[in-house]
Structure formats: C-alpha cells, structure tokens
C-alpha cells in the first residue's frame, strides 16, 4: 500500500510563479498543494539590500493582482516585493518549511519526497526559479590566486563585505553594472570585465523603456520565432537599475571612474588577463540597442503615440585597452562574479536534462508526462523572464495540465 498524501498537482516553490500557477489551478478547481522550503517569496528575502526590480511597479502584475499603490512608476525593493508576494499568496494552499528532497516517476504520476513526508501526485510544476544559484565559470575561478576574496551577485550584500582595495566585477549584466557602481561610489578602485551585454536606456522619449517594450509588443516576442533560440535564452539581463535617475550604462560607469576591460579570460603570472574584444562587444550592444529603438520608433509612428524626441543614447566610448591587471597588493584583492544564475534542480530525479544539465522544455512542458517547469528565462515569450510573464505562462501550463487530466479521466 503506497504511503503519503495525495493531490492532483504539486507545485514546488511559492514565489510569484508558483503562486500564479496556484491561482490558475484554483480557478479551474484543480486540487493542488504548493510546497515551499522556507517561507513565501523566500528567494526575494535573501537578496542584497540595494536590489530593486528592473520593472516599474505598474508592471508587477499577477493573475488577479495589479499594483494600486502610490508609486506606479517606482521600482520595488526586494523586501517590498517579498511582502507583496506574501499578501498575494495568503489564500493559496502553501505548506511552508517543506523541502522537496526528490521527485521520481512512478507507474502513474510522481512521488514527491519531502522532509515532512511524501506526496503522490499526477503532475508536478517546478517553480523554484531560474536564479536559485549563482553561475560561476569554474575553470576561470580555479585560476584565481588564493587570498583573493570571491563573492557572487547572489551572496554579495554591501561594499563592506569586501576587503579594502581593488575589486574586479566580472560581467556587465544588470547585477554587474549595479554592483560596480555601488563599489565605486564606496571609494574603491573598480575594474569591470565586460563580455556580451544588453544595453538599454532606463527612459526613452519620456517614458520607461519597459513601457515601450510592453506597448510595442517586444515582450510578446515568442521563443519559437527567435532566429537563435539558444542565444535568446542565455542573454545576460538588461543593463538597468530600478531608479529613475541617470542611466547606468558603460559610459556612466566610465564617468564614475570604473575601469572597463574586456571579458575576464584567464590568469597568468598572478595577473588577470582580459580579452581584447571590448570594442566589439560594445559595438554589438550598441547595434542591438539601435535595432530595439528603431522598432519602438516604428511602432510609435504607426500607433501615433505621443512621445518625446527620439534622442538616441550616444555610442559607447571604448577606453584604451587594458589587457591585464595584477592580483594582490595594490591590485585586485577581491572578485564579484556577476556571471549569471541557474536553477537548482538537483532534487529532480527525472530524465529531462540536456548534456549541460539544463532542463529541456517546450514552453514549460517537459518530455515527462505531467512534469512542467515555470519561471524559466524566455520560457514562452520575452515577458516570461519578468514577474509580469508568470501569469500568462501559468495560464498556458494550466491549459496543458487540465487537458491531460481530462484525457486521463
């Protein structure tokens, strides 16, 4: 006699994605439970204090929820967002303090083991987030001399976490540029290693860039229409910061006194070596930005939107090349790896991974019947990467999941 409690669907993770899924399943009267290792919105509670959402408050939309606070054009801090998600999840069937230790396929359905006992279910929705673990290039990290302090964008909190002296920030994503600026303002010499990056201005023609991307349909670009889908899902986050002030692009960092160098490529004779390709990655980013703004201008003209003048951001000024910098002493004494995040699915004992350990899915539907993922970058559309994408992706998965239930009944 198999033991454990039974439910139709187990959702793993009570963040925005898991709770959006729960809301849709509840609307369809699908019996389910949300298992959460910590408390609701757990990941948002562990982020650095200075972190703010890149999306304006009015875009913090979930099924049955819209922001109605006093500052629709502001940007929530991580604690504010955690409170908001907690309020949103109050009615959901969440079991907090319940860590999933394994998910295994059974003759029918799945066995979900937790530290609070097992569950049997016909379907599982993995909603533990795409940014559970910091992704650090292991081969490169292994070359860094002992004594150099390493942090990641996930465990860095404040500048005083790091020893005095020079800091190398690796990666010019949103986290990388924000952390580089914050460290520079704390008075440290900061070197930012810049690989491929996505440059966008905070505001364009008098409106938030995300207003334009939302209105012009950029966020609705579908994954299957991307000319290079692999690349689309692996793009670094947009160089944005959640504040209405000056843009935080490479020109601004250069002006702040951050030393811009090429991709961190290796260590030789106690010196960090940087790629000589900085000019090209800047050219690629400027060209990509130009195409985005062309698309926005085209849409604005067709839709007769009232907007400010189409003043383009100036090209990225590429500083004179710096190809190496010494570690230790007066040189680089600490590193912050802002080299991306990845999911932690070590507990998922179902064969749905590619050779690089990434879960293979089509819009969140895996090859294992009844196993779904939610909240992955560019899961269905560009919007999937944002909180604002959770609702539509969860609705789509709910369609797929309930259709399967009907077939099985």
């Amino acid at each position: 006699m198999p033991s454990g409690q039974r439910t139709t669907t187990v959702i793993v993770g009570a963040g925005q994605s898991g709770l959006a899924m729960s809301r849709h399943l509840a609307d369809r009267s699908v019996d389910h439970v949300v298992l959460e290792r910590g408390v609701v919105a757990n990941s948002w509670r562990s982020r650095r204090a200075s972190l703010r959402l890149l999306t304006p408050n009015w875009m913090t939309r979930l099924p049955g929820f819209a922001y109605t606070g006093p500052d629709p054009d502001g940007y929530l801090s991580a604690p504010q967002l955690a409170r908001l998600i907690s309020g949103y999840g109050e009615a959901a069937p969440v079991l907090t303090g319940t860590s999933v230790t394994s998910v295994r396929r059974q003759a029918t359905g799945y066995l979900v083991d937790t530290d609070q006992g097992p569950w049997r279910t016909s379907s599982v929705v993995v909603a533990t987030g795409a940014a559970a673990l910091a992704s650090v290039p292991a081969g490169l990290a292994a070359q860094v001399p002992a004594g150099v302090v390493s942090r990641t964008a996930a465990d860095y909190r404040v500048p005083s976490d790091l020893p005095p002296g020079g800091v190398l920030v690796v990666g010019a994503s949103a986290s990388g540029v924000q952390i580089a600026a914050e460290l520079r303002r704390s008075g440290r010499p900061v070197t930012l290693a810049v690989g491929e990056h996505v440059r966008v201005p905070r505001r364009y023609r008098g409106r938030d860039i995300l207003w334009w991307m939302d209105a012009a349909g950029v966020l609705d670009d579908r994954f299957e229409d991307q000319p290079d889908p692999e690349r689309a899902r692996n793009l670094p986050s947009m160089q944005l910061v959640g504040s209405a002030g000056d843009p935080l692009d490479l020109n601004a960092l250069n002006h702040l006194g951050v030393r811009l160098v090429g991709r961190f490529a290796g260590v030789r004779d106690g010196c960090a070596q940087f790629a000589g390709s900085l000019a090209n990655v800047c050219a690629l980013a400027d060209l990509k930005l130009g195409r985005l703004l062309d698309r926005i201008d085209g849409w604005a003209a067709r839709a007769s939107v009232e907007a400010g003048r189409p003043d383009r951001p100036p090209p990225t000024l590429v500083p004179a090349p710096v190809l190496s910098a010494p570690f230790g002493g007066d040189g680089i004494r600490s590193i912050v790896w802002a080299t991306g995040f990845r999911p932690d699915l070590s507990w998922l004992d179902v064969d749905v991974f590619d050779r690089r350990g990434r879960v293979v899915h089509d819009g969140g539907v895996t090859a294992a019947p009844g196993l779904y993922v939610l909240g992955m970058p560019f899961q269905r559309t560009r919007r999937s990467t944002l909180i604002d994408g959770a609702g539509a992706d969860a609705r789509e998965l709910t369609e797929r999941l309930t259709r399967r239930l009907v077939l099985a009944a």
Partner: protein
Amino acid sequence: MTTSVVDNGVNVEALLGARTAFADAPQIAQFQWRSTVSWIKGTHSRAGVETFFGFAEEQRHSTDFSFDIDHPLQFAAQDKGITPVEYVLVALGGCLTAGIAAVAQQRGIQLRSVHATVSAEMDLHGILGADPDVRNGFSGVRVEYRIDAEADRQEIEAIVAQSQKRSAVFDILTNPTAVTVSVV
C-alpha cells in the same frame, strides 16, 4: 522586397545542419588542426598543411598545401615567403571575411564586394630583447572593411560585429591560449 536569390557561395544549411548534428553527438565536434614546419636555411622554413581530425575521423585537405616562411631582405634574410606575423594577419582577415560571407548569407544579404585591410603595430625592441617593457607581439591590430552589399550601413556593421563574435582567429588573438612546446 527583393525576389532574387541571395547567393554568397556559402552553404548555410550545411553549417546549421552541423550544429544540429553536434547537438545529437557532441563528440563529433572535437577537431584538431595541424601543421608541420621544416627548417630550410636561415630564417626560411616551409610549412605543410595536409590533414586534420574532425567529425570523429581522420580528414585530409583535397590538396597538400605548402607555405614558405621567411623574413624580408631588410632583415638580411632571403624573403622566400612572408613573415610568421604576417600569416597571423592573413589568418585573421581570412577568418573574419569568411564569417562575413556566412553571416550575410544567413541574413539574406547579397554581398557584391568585400575588402579588408589588416594592419598591426609592433615595436621590434620586444623581439630583439632590447627593452623588457615592450612585448614581443603586436601592440594592436586593426582591420578596416570596405563592403558593397545590398544592405544599409547598420546592417553591414552588424554583420561585421557578428563575424568577430563567431571568429576563431579573433578569439585566438583576443584571448589567452595555453601553448605547450616540447622536444621529442
């Protein structure tokens, strides 16, 4: 709207097909490139390039290629071939130009002419051991393209940028590479 078929002479379908095949059998993507070099006299050597390994088996060029390497008369040499550093410029220009053709083909852009001028600065104090602060290699490399194509300037710049992003020789020149030299 153009109705003519874009043809830059690049079989993009075959290249994309290889990428798909690699996804199914990643080990066939492991290649080894080879060259032999034999000293002739003075600074004159001759390099042969005949075989390579890839797609899980030994491969052979359709012709046995041979290249003379020397230094110019100004170096009191015989100038029987170009210098090794000039081969590096040839390799970079060749790699980027092939990339431009492939990227343009994939983007449906007809090229009419593509000309690159590749130049590199070098301070000979480095290789002569006359100044320890000067490196042996190039202090910088410049590539200037003149491209005539059925595309606007922004599209052409995007092709050139993408070609650098996907270029092996650009990567080899801009990133460190471990080099092991031994005597057997």
